[in-house]
């Protein structure tokens, strides 16, 4: 009898464990989170005795791989507590699955109060699901003029604002000075047009010696494709979606021309390598490609390479009808289930719009998202000149037209355009029409 009872107890226990496993994703990630926070929270346990002005306790997740800047946020919390009484716990998460972790903690409801997110890509999706605190009623719009429009746009959804931007970046043209000199080519300038790009790429191409003019992510389907192609669409005066973002309109003549331009370089000139570089090989710094289109995050990589640091230059993207580049970067959001919305909002403003943000930028090389600080790095011996090119581009930068299913849209568009690039679909108009139809299908589902 006893055995049976015990057995049923075990069974009940097993069921309980099973039930708990239902929220397994959140449980496990919160335990790793608390482990990760252990190191950071020990630093601030001293000095908690004084009388607090507010007894709010906030937790913020930051990108852990940018350690220097995460440390600055951490250091700043002591001072912030002194001034406001709000105790902030900084949790640096260094993981490729950062956004999945956020998703998982949200599912379990034990998410932090604030977090860094990929601006637009993740913020709009979370906003659409009602997971972010709408900030209009806290008066966030007084900061609108501080930011570039393209940057501000990434944190807005429908009629509200869901966060503030802390970093930004865009794409520019990296080129190999040595290769340009060897080929007797003039280095790219701000006036460069598509034709200049194409002829230089052609001149630098020598397939027999494994040398190519330009690297384009024609193989990449995880957004890299869309993200690099959109500036070309915009330079030619085209648009991806209508203003309400309810319909795709990139099968216009402008888009046709932009896509054909790529294809000509890929299939006709063969000045763009067709395959993704193998793991661990950077085709640009290893001298295979003479130019590439990339963001400011590559600067530290190239500048720390003793063999390459003097060999490259950065120029604005070439223009067609107009100049354009695409803006990316990080924002900070407040989650709607926070216990202290006002305090969280105040801290968000402190983090992104007070003087502190300058300390942050000193430690995370980025493009300041605020025009006021356009020349923030001008005095920097190492980065100054390079960053300035990106910073000057911000004026005419554009945002991707984010919607809640952006990752899916980006992926679908990438595949359809790739089909054309890889000669699976020969007719450019048909390729774009199909892509438009596919994207429209996703947009229609959003409305449901």
């Amino acid at each position, binding site marked *: 009898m006893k*055995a049976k009872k*015990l057995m049923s107890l075990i069974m009940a226990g097993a069921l309980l*464990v099973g039930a708990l496993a239902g929220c397994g994703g959140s449980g496990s990630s919160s335990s790793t989170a608390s482990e990760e926070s252990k190191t950071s929270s020990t630093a601030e346990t001293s000095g908690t005795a004084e009388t607090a002005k507010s007894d709010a306790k906030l937790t913020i997740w930051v990108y852990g791989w940018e350690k220097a800047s995460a440390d600055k946020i951490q250091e700043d919390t002591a001072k912030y507590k002194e001034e406001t009484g709000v105790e902030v716990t900084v949790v640096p998460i260094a993981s490729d699955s950062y956004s999945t972790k956020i998703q998982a903690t949200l599912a379990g409801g034990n998410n932090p109060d604030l977090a860094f997110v990929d601006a637009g890509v993740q913020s709009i999706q979370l906003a659409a699901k009602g997971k972010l605190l709408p900030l209009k009623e806290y008066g966030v719009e007084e900061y609108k003029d501080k930011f570039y429009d393209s940057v501000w746009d990434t944190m807005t959804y429908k009629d509200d604002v869901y966060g503030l931007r802390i970093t930004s970046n865009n794409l520019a043209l990296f080129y190999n000075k040595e290769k340009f000199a060897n080929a007797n080519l003039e280095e790219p300038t701000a006036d460069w047009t598509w034709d200049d790009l194409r002829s230089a790429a052609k001149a630098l191409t020598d397939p027999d010696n494994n040398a190519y003019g330009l690297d384009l992510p024609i193989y990449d389907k995880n957004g890299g494709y869309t993200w690099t192609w959109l500036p070309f669409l915009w330079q030619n005066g085209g648009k991806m979606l209508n203003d309400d973002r309810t319909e795709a309109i990139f099968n216009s003549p402008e888009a046709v021309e932009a896509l054909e331009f790529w294809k000509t370089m890929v299939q006709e000139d063969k000045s763009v390598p067709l*395959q993704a570089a193998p793991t661990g090989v950077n085709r640009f710094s290893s001298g295979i490609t003479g130019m590439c289109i990339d963001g400011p995050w590559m600067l530290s990589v190239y500048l720390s390479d003793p063999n390459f640091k003097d060999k490259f230059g950065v120029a604005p993207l070439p223009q067609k009808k107009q100049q354009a580049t695409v803006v990316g970067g990080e924002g900070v959001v407040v989650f709607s289930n926070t216990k202290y919305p006002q305090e969280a909002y105040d801290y968000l403003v402190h983090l992104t719009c007070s003087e502190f943000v300058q300390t942050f930028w000193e430690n995370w090389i980025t493009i300041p998202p605020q025009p006021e600080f356009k020349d923030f790095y001008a005095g920097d011996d190492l980065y100054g000149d390079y960053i300035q090119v990106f910073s000057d581009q911000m004026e005419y930068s554009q945002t991707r037209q984010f919607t809640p299913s952006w990752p899916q849209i980006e992926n679908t568009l990438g595949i359809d355009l790739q089909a054309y690039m*890889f000669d699976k679909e020969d007719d450019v108009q048909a390729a774009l029409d199909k892509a438009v139809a596919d994207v429209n299908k996703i947009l229609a589902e959003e409305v449901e």
Partner: protein
Amino acid sequence: MAHNKSGKIQRRKNFWGYLFIAPNFIGFLVFMLVPILMSLYYSFTDYDVITSANFVGVDNYIKLFQDDQFITALLNTLWYCVLTVPAGVVLALLLAVLFNRQIPGIGVFRTLTFIPVITSMVAVSLVWSMLYEDNGGLLNTLLGYLNLPPVHWLTDTNMAMISIAIMSVWKGLGYNMTIFLAGLQGVPHDLYEAATIDGANSVQKFFKITVPMIGPTTYFVSLMSLIGSLQVFDQVYIMTNGGPVDATKTVAMYLYQYGFQFYKMGYACAAAYVLFILVFVVSLIQNRSSKKWAEASV
């Protein structure tokens, strides 16, 4: 009285028995059965991981079969099976027959063939990606020496799946071969002796004795290969990520994307159940068709 006592002992014995299987059983319950049932439920909802799931009936399944990409993924998966299963089974059998003899150093050959099996798929995929590299990859360099044009192993929409299949067959060969070896060693030697006396040559012996005698082994190997092939994911994810275009997008790749990149978990669960049903039906068909063959030879 005596009866009662033995019952008690039996129960005590049962208790310990249950206790010993409990860890495994609890593990199965928590990590297999509950998630399997939950994903079945989610496949009928619009679950997106962060907000609560709403029941949507069979909408997900209808949408699946209206999606060109899913149909492409299904066809790609079947194409991969066609490429890998027969080739994998036949090559493994030939290799096993070759290695099923006592010659010096045979252990070395067997071991070498088995090494890819114990190597992680991630490592193998990365190394093969390098071999397949368009420019400067080993295979194209070799072709260059022979004055042959380079092959776009992973960047040609028609070639990419074949390239992945070649690698997968190579990687799985050792496993299948080992099972065949075990099967071969179970074939009674006197059958071959008798056949030799009757004047059968080795080809005849292979088709008249070996093949029928290892029927059950062949059945097991091909079924396992088929199930594995239907679920192919790792190598695709690492080597091509479903591309170029969607030439190597398999069902597993498709559902991973929807579940973990687009957060359409309900929809992804539906795709997973379609895959499950596919595996189930295919196994059933194979089971039926092989039964006679397997039974006849036992």
